[in-house]
């Protein structure tokens, strides 16, 4: 499919309000975001702008208070928690700021876990995990535990894990937040490479330079609303 033809994720006037004591916190207050297949989208905003909430909503980790979220044409705002988990496991790959690997499992086992929840055979899981870890240049370290790996290596394990079920979209939440500039660049280049291979990437960041350097479309959030949308006219590479 040609890039940008098919709408993969669509948030339509989505709101997420929390009751905190007496006051209602409008974390996200009516945002509309559209992500087409093959896009590299950045959701940009300072702390408190609602970008993390937006990320949770896009990633179907959280249900909106109001509005609709469509993933691959399906309205996921009405799904049960179990169905949501299933959809999430199959269609979305997560990369977190703090890597969020499971400490008791090796790099390879961490990559295998999402496939386990999709009921994939053990041999297939192992084979896929090995090839994904090789892809992120960690073929030599697949039997290491997270605490035996550097920050950059852990984030690459997380990238490999996010791809385990061949998701249609990879959601990266501040993927370089805990990494130094150089290591961060390596991780971002992996994401860019994935995008060039046709994978849809959504990256949440507070760093406008990163957002503009890597993403095709940047949604600038401010106070729970989309402040502006900028698009790159010509792709960088």
């Amino acid at each position: 499919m040609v890039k940008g033809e098919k709408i993969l994720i669509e948030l339509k006037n989505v709101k997420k309000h929390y009751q905190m004591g007496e006051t209602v916190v409008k974390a996200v207050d009516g945002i509309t975001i559209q992500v087409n297949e093959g896009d590299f989208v950045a959701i940009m905003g300072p702390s408190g702008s609602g970008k993390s909430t937006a990320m949770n909503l896009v990633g179907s980790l959280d249900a909106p208070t109001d509005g609709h979220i469509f993933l691959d044409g399906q309205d996921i705002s009405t799904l049960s928690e179990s169905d949501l988990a299933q959809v999430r496991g199959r269609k979305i790959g997560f990369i977190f700021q703090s890597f969020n690997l499971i400490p008791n499992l090796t790099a390879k086992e961490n990559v295998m876990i999402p496939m386990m929840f999709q009921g994939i055979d053990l041999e297939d899981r192992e084979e896929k995990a090995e090839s994904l870890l090789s892809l992120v240049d960690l073929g030599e370290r697949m039997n290491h535990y997270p605490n035996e790996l550097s920050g950059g290596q852990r984030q690459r394990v997380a990238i490999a894990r996010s791809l385990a079920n061949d998701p249609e979209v990879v959601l990266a939440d501040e993927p370089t937040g805990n990494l130094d500039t150089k290591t961060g660049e390596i991780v971002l280049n992996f994401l860019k490479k994935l995008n060039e291979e046709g994978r849809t990437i959504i990256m949440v960041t507070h760093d406008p330079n990163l957002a503009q350097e890597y993403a095709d479309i940047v949604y600038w959030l401010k106070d729970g609303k989309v402040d502006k949308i900028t698009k790159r006219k010509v792709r960088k590479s």
Partner: protein
Amino acid sequence: MIKDYFTLAFKNLKHRGVRSWLTLLGIFIGITAVVSLISLGNGLQVAIGSQFGLSETELITVQAGGLNFGPPGSSVSDSLTVDDLEAIEKLSSVKQVARRNLKPGQLEYNNKIIFGYAASVGDGERRKFLYDQLGVETISGRLLEDGDSGKIVLGYNFFMDKVGLEKPVNVGNKVSIEGRKFEVIGILDKQGSFIYDNIVLMNDADMQDLFDYGDTVDIIAVQARDKNDLMSTKEDIEKLLRERRDVKVGKEDFSVSTPESSLDQINGILNGVKIFIAIVASISILIGAIGIINTMTTSVLERRREIGIMKAIGARNENIFYQFFVESSLLGLVGGIAGALFGTFIGFVGTIGINAWVGADIQPTINFSLIFFSLLGSFLLGGLAGISPALEAAKQNPVEVIRG
């Protein structure tokens, strides 16, 4: 998928701290108690039974005093007498009787003094009856005969130097009993009973000289005419003695016991012990279950982040539930395995200990179905204890737990 849960649970358990393992002490102690008790129970039964000479004899024994296993010959207010014995002998259901006196005394040999029991042996038919019924044989020397005076036959343990004299006693040696010299003319073969392997057999005349018990009788051994109907013979004797001693039913100051009734009594004691240990085991297991609930609840709190990650990457609530449930079951199983191993070990060592102590020869056995069921039980208990924490884990909200 089930295999995956076990693999994951196993990995998680491997990384658990000492604290988690300590909570298993309850299950461990409970299962140890159950397994060791049951492994030892049969051994104990045989051991206690053999101590009272309750092997294959078909003897009815009559003793003064209530039904108890206190030392024979210990001060009984109203002893049985030779008259009682002769009255019993005249009962139609009785074939023959034997008078047995059993007296505590001191024995000196090799400049060492020990305390033990001397048993009297009557003359003629009664001697033969006693030897037959007890099945005594010598491994060295000969048994006492009518007219032997100043002569004794000793139990097997004297020969094996197991009575504390620090020197084996053999045929031909002289020992001093209550200050009088006796010649050892025979050693009894091993009986496997504490009483008989430590006994001193002496002719009635010598015993009478030494202890001067007059016409009192400690034990009347009775052989029934019909060995298949010991109960009615027992009832006859009881009726007779009630009349002679002027006591009412239920107020007997004597006891008439058949091998079965003695065995019943031993089993009664053992059952009491079993019930006590079962109660202790139940309490331990209950505490163990609470320990597992506690450690699993802590684990859920500690691993909220992990649960969040699992959910983010596609775990459904039931996946999380099963993972914690299986982990909890395995935790219980580990306690059970440790307990079953240790319990079996205690059963073995205990049986060997009983053998060494009483000179019995009980084979230690491993009860596989007992082990299987205690392992199954601890596995299920672990799972049961894990249900509530696992439900708690399953309902964690990924958004709330994943950040921070």
